[in-house]
């Protein structure tokens, strides 16, 4: 040894243990790297495809048409003269929910795989690993924008005049869903390193997510079929809150008579949705930092 243990303490000022992260705070500190990772993902995603970024429009458009025909027309969810009990302007109703769920699906699915996908890097160089799930969510946010543009154009064509409160609620609704995706992305991204079952579990979860929130049908059906208690549980799902916020902002101003929002939606349920999502983020952060120490050897 070149230095005895006695001199070790004198020289210890400024020595730090490498590899200990401050979690999501490190991501804020690495904004430039986050931006580069997001740019890379956007550049690489549709490389070598003829339609390129157009795929971000084509896929939701096809999905929308299929759902609209099957549910709106065949199963009678669209209101018409022969079907007065249906939802007015069902196309807007459906699309405003679908864009948000699509964002959630893409975000969570990619975030859950992000650590394993970037394993080569994580095994060799230390960097804040939370960057990978967060950049996956960010990329999905960018893919969400063109769909938002289509939604707004469709709304404007059907006489959309939203209030500031409605627009603000939509922003909050998006935030709730984005936070939920981030929290779950951290959890499943970390667990996936140890058990690849996680990504299959996420696929299953996402299939349920579309049906466990009022994307295709109205929340009143839950109340009428299952009762008040079931409705309360249903509303605890942050996705339900996000989707209803979007209905409130984009669909209600375009439809004359609607069933309205669930009782005390803005005063109670939106704050609850936000709190639940933040709790999921905190849980994700906690679990991620407990598991990340062994990423390099498990990958």
């Amino acid at each position, binding site marked *: *040894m*070149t*230095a005895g243990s006695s001199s*070790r303490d004198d*020289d*210890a000022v*400024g*020595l*730090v*243990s*490498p*590899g*200990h992260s401050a979690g999501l705070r490190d991501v804020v500190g*690495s904004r*430039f*790297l986050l931006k*580069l*990772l997001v*740019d*890379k993902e956007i*550049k*690489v995603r549709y*490389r070598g495809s003829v339609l390129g970024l157009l795929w971000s429009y084509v896929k939701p458009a096809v999905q929308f048409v299929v759902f609209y025909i099957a549910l709106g027309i065949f199963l009678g969810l669209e209101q018409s003269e022969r079907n007065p009990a249906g939802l007015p302007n069902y196309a807007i109703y459906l699309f405003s929910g679908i864009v948000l769920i699509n964002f959630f699906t893409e975000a969570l699915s990619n975030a859950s795989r992000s650590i394993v996908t970037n394993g*080569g*890097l*994580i*095994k*060799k*160089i*230390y*960097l804040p690993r939370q960057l990978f799930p967060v950049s996956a969510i960010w990329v999905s946010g960018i893919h969400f924008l063109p769909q938002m543009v289509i939604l707004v154009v469709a709304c404007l064509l059907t006489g959309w005049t939203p209030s500031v409160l409605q627009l603000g609620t939509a922003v909050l609704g998006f935030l709730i869903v984005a936070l939920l995706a981030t929290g779950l992305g951290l959890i499943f991204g970390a667990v996936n390193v140890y*058990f690849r079952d996680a990504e299959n579990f996420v696929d299953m979860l996402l299939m349920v997510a579309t049906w466990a929130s009022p994307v295709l049908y109205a929340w009143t059906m839950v109340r009428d079929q299952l009762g008040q208690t079931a409705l309360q549980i249903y509303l605890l799902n942050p996705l339900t809150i996000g989707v209803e916020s979007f209905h409130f902002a984009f669909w209600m101003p375009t439809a004359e008579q609607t069933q309205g929002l669930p009782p005390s939606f803005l005063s109670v349920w939106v704050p609850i949705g936000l709190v639940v999502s933040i709790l999921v983020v905190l849980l994700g952060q906690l679990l991620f930092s407990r598991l990340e*120490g*062994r990423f*390099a*050897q498990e990958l």
Partner: protein
Amino acid sequence: MPVSIDIDNLDKRFVMRHTRSIKESVLWLLKGRRGDLSRKFSALEGVSLTIQQGETVALLGFNGSGKSTLLKHISGVMLPDAGTVRIRGRVAGLIEVGAGFHPDLSGRDNVFLNGSILGMTEKEIRQQFDSIVEFSEIGEFIDTEVRFYSSGMYLRLAFAVAVHTDPDIFLIDEILAVGDEPFQKKCLAKIKELNEAGKTLVVVSHDFDMVRKVCERGVVLEHGRIVQDGTVSEAIGHLRAG
């Protein structure tokens, strides 16, 4: 000289799981837990090492002796099971060539991405960009996608980015074996220059000639323990003696 790297009684065990399938785990339980599903082995055991700032240290040993694992603890990629690892300043490593390079991005994009991964700020990369390209001798190909690069070009660009990160501690894991002789000479000159500027170097290599040129101190690892710590010639002598 202040301490640059301080490793105290470091232990690292790896668990080798034989199976991850639920079926086999259930069978194992039914058989009364006979046999072991996992096997532990010590990659590092009671390793203590203090390196002063500006030292040039070669980590030597046969395959599987724990050299690379030790390097990964210094860079923070792995965390110790017991003991402590502490470092002063920024670490940059050529742990493996081009980790963090994306084949579908241009050389330019990769310089930014890799520089940022290695801890450079946007401003630092912009300032150093021309110098990085010049050092790498990539020239006009800097805007070509990296997957069209030859392995030599790939290595040169990766090395150029790494030496421009201005680290306080520079980790080198067996990379100089690639690249042609003129570039190897250039790399060695650059490494010496870094050392003269007071950087700490930790090198893992089986290339004794290279190690002799670059390092003064040699540490020999055997089955995860330090068995020899002295000058690099002594270390090489110890290994050759078997």
